[in-house]
């Protein structure tokens, strides 16, 4: 586990851990760190996706799939950081999918509800 110690470095370079790595159109031969290899990959945030901004527990879900909601309408209650957080619809539209159940413990940035925006 982990990144090699000083004296292990050269040994590793012999063992084909050296890879191509592109910086401004030029390919360099180099080792990668674990942190770099495990970096989070970015993906586009779609309008109408409701993600958790804190880790917590879903207490109550106020809407059902197929229901029309207005921007600002209460969707669910997420208990997080000792607070009952009211999660509201970011846009007006139809509830397309509910991806959590009451009682679910979820992480930060967990996709909870998808809305088809109008």
């Amino acid at each position, binding site marked *: 586990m982990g990144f090699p110690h000083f004296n292990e470095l050269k040994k590793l370079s012999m063992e084909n851990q050296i890879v191509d790595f592109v*910086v*401004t159109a030029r390919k360099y031969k180099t080792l990668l760190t674990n942190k770099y290899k495990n970096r989070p990959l970015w993906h586009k945030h779609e309008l109408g996706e409701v993600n958790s901004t804190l880790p917590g527990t879903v207490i109550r879900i106020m809407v059902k799939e197929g229901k029309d909601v207005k921007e600002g309408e209460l969707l669910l209650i997420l208990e997080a950081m000792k607070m009952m957080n009211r999660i509201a619809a970011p846009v007006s539209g139809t509830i397309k999918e509910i991806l959590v159940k009451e009682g679910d413990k979820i992480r930060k940035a967990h996709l909870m509800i998808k809305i088809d925006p109008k």
Partner: protein
Amino acid sequence: MFLQNEGCREMKHYKSITMTELEKNIQALRARKAVVEKGGGEAAIEKQEAMGKLTARKRILSLLDPDSFHEYDMFVKHDGHDFGMEKKDFPGDGVVTGTGTIFGAPVCIYAQDFTVAGGSLGLQHARKITKIMDHALKMKCPIIGINDSGGARIQEGVQALAGYGEIFYRNTIASGVIPQISLILGPCAGGAVYSPALTDFVFVVENISKMFITGPNVIKTVLGEDISMEDLGGARVHAEITGNAHFYATSEQECFDQIKRLVSFIPWNNTKKAKSIEPKKPAAKQNIGNIIPADPKQPYDVRDIIQCLVDDSDFLEVQELWAANIVIGFGRMGGETIGFVANQPMVLAGVLDCDSSDKAARFIRFCDSFNIPIITLEDMPGYLPGVDQEHAGVIRHGAKVLYAYSEATVPKITVILRKAYGGGYIAMNSRHLGADFTFAWPTAEIAVMGPEGAANIIFRKEIMEADDQDVMRQQKVKEYIEKFANPYVAASKGFIDSVIEPKETRSLLLHALELSVLKEEYRPAKKHGLPPF
């Protein structure tokens, strides 16, 4: 008359008693000390040792010069009056404090004693720590803190919080005045983590150090995720992933040896220079001119170059495992301590990114605070491209390097070994940020960007219109390399003082250091600057 006689008689009587009384008192003192020295008692000590941990006093004695430790405040009593605490006695209130020396250098030290109430921090425990910190700041000597504590003593409530706050305040006030060293030799969780985080060097030991804000239990309750203490905030995590730790050891003894070595490299306070030792030639057998591969895309270990430059090839690397794409650490030249900052082509091609910028900037500021000249060895292709980097704030983090170099008034010397492209060229202690000496090897490529990228932009039209675009691109890249990928364009503007041969490097650096012994440089008076934290 009467009174005088009475006095004489009394005196005589008193004197004969004192000898035996004194002896009795001494015995009583020793007995009291022995109780405190037992800490939490044999069972607790056994438990401590079973975890591979030394007791607080043994740790201090292993770290300090023999017979140099003088303990303070052994008889301090705790300040808890609720929940039955008033009936309990905590020897030394769970922390050992005092003074001593390391290689003759005076230090103030404290060690939390996990065998006493889990090393928990109450008001008096904190007062002992802040007292020895105040002492260190007044005496202008380094402060060393050994953390091994279950956290705040809950029974003392807000008093415990007050204690932490008073420690953080002193860490901040002492910052840049005296070196501050933290050892994490046990749990250090919740608010307690912020004292080490405010200090200059944090030492961790495999399987012993545990550091986190919220522990595995809370994570389990909130998220239902199972993670061990080691995976959440063990030594390796802080040495490799978070960068909270500066030195990583596999045993407590190795950790103490690392600290002794570090103390030998740094000064006692910000008004002194680090102690110089007998100058020595580098011990490395390698030829400094043979380390860099001819192909600029091939990697090498920049520490091999440092080994060829420093006395006795003795280099103490700091934060070896974290952000390994930049190397920082201490070595000596001509017997004097020097701070090295070097891009590491072996890892991530030596790019600057959020972590390596933070790492370099903080180290540069340490060197500047404590009168340690900085030598920068440059070989970097630019900043790490990627959405994750941009969104993590590589602009804000990268700016710290510019700030730290520009702000520093200690002697600043740069040697450009190979690539110095774009913003990286400016950031790595360029002449423009106030370098005192700038050297470049003939292998240096100082340009606005890598040849491929530059050719793609400058000759875009020619490449697009060519029958064979690849051939044209290759040709234009070659043209660009010949014209710009060298040190002579920068040298022609005076941005580089001289282009030097690798084998001359050490002697020219020694010359530059000698020349800058009396360097004086001032900055406008201000309350403090606003580095992009």
